[in-house]
């Protein structure tokens, strides 16, 4: 699976006197199994780029081809199905459903795919054990630490066997130890299962661990380096 981005632009408030050009004519290709960090100052367009790759936002112009399918042409319903089946999301604030246990949070996204309860339960248990939460899986998020919640979020992102995982500043709210543990898990999954990870970050600890770093400034790609 590859992601081919061509002449991608996003302008907010297009009709107003002060349009905001979040992403400007971007060309980029990300191959299967990459571990990519997108860095740049606040407001540089990192999150907008991730949102457009993940099918959350639609570009003003250009295309995002996922295995040759332009997701920018999909309607709302098809985009939801695309996200459900092909993209895993990890959010900065974990964004777990507070009333569900860790296990149920992971099961929930698989149930949206229509998988049986038994299959969901087995895979969710397996993933939570893999991220080191085998003993904590029946706890609700409020009973888990920030690091543990983010690990649940990783398990949730991986549960539907996505083609790639988008992580928007996943370590922003974590301490050094939790950050390191989370990166270990993500890196291990990337290496063992070949899952593509794309994350936006300011965190130098994360950038050091990335295999490829894309630097963004003022909506433009200014640097793209392999590490």
């Amino acid at each position, binding site marked *: 699976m590859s992601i081919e981005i061509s002449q991608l632009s996003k302008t907010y408030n297009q009709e107003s006197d002060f349009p905001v050009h979040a992403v400007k004519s971007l060309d980029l290709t990300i191959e299967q199994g990459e571990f990519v960090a997108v860095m740049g100052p606040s407001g540089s367009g990192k999150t907008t780029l991730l949102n457009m790759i993940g099918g*959350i936002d639609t570009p003003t112009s250009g295309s995002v081809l996922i295995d040759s399918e332009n997701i920018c042409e999909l309607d709302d319903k098809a985009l*939801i199905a695309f*996200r459900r089946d092909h993209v895993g999301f990890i*959010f900065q604030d974990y*964004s777990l*459903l507070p*009333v*569900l246990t860790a296990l149920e949070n992971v099961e929930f996204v698989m149930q*949206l795919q229509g998988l049986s309860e038994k299959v969901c339960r087995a895979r969710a248990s397996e993933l939570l054990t893999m991220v080191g939460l085998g003993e904590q899986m029946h706890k609700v998020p409020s009973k888990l630490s920030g690091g543990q919640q983010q690990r649940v979020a990783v398990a949730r992102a991986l549960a539907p066997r996505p083609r790639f995982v988008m992580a928007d500043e996943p370590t922003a709210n974590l301490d050094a130890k939790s950050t390191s543990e989370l990166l270990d898990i993500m890196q291990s999954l990337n290496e063992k299962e070949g899952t593509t990870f794309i994350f936006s970050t300011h965190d130098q600890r994360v950038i050091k661990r990335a295999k490829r770093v894309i630097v963004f400034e003022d909506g433009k790609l200014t640097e793209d380096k392999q590490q």
Partner: protein
Amino acid sequence: MLFKLAWRNLWRQKRRTLLTALALSLALFLSLFMRSMQEGSYENNIDNSARFSTGLLQLQNPEFSESQSIEDLLPGTTDFITPVTAPPLSPHITHHLPRIESFALASASERAKGVMVFGVEPERENSYSGIADKLIAGEFIDADDKQVLVGEGLARFLSIKLGDELVLYGQGYRGQTAAGLYKVKGIIHFPLAAMDNQLVYMPIKLAQTLYSTGEQVTSWVLHTDSLDMVAEVKSELVQAFGSKVNVRDWQQLSPEMAQQIAMDKAGGVFMMYLLYGVVGFGLFATILMMTLERQREFGVMLATGLLRRKLLGLIAIESGFIALIGVLIGLIITLPVVTYFHYHPIQLTGETAQLMLEMGWEPIIPMMLSFSLVFDQVKIVLGLMFICLLYPLWRAYRIDLVSALKGDSYG
């Protein structure tokens, strides 16, 4: 999973959920109590009034309602009334009474007055309306009597007493003269002056002789086992008798009463909707708040693949749970109270009670215990919930994913 999620979401704000449900319960309690009391007293009044005069249903000659003439009659035979006395109608018809109702001029000594003559089967009429209890002097008539009962006001006007003679003069069947001389066997007191001043009761055979109707009657008075059955029985009677008989229900027979009840009911229903309207705002505020404060959460759910329609379903289920809790608590509180007052009606006292007693009615306000009343309230609560849901659902449907994920809660 959606049901589990919805149920657990309710208890994130326990106090808010319970207060909203309790507000619904209170509205349901007050509305159901009020409506049960209203319908109970309507039923009681209609039943009392029907027994006293018109019956719940009447079979009449198709011309009679317009003409009120002794020319427009129905057979008074057992054969004719067979559809009423045989299944499937018989289990629902508790009484069927033949009557002659006509006008006559009554005179005694030096005075005369237009009167209403009721020819009835005394025993059956008494078991239906308890008319013998209204006797203030003399004895009740029996089927073969040649004597009559008169209202107290009429007796006073004509200056007659027990054993005195009364001449009735009028027009009989097919233009014949109806005239007869009858002794007064009893004097009845009716609380309604209009009746007290003009009613004469006599055995139906005697009335048939007076008006030369043979075995014919002006109407068959019917009573059903419950007020709810009137419409159904009427429709079956119409089918059974066809166009040769006019089947009239109590609304047609007592239009003033039907109108009064309709107006009273409209007032009650207006109050009920007012009450639900006030509670509805509370419900609306809760549902809207539940929707707006979770935009980010909804955004995450949509991002991870929840279809918008399922998101709307989740909100609807949560609201449905609140309504269900409200209805359940409301019914748990209301049903025992209404059931108690159904079997132990509120007793009236003072002048109102006295007036009702004089009319031969029990001085009570009974409560109606009816599934349809309960069902109506549940429907109203669910309808209210649906209305309250429309705007929050619309807001949820048009959530902008990017804004929601940024946490723009009220965008």
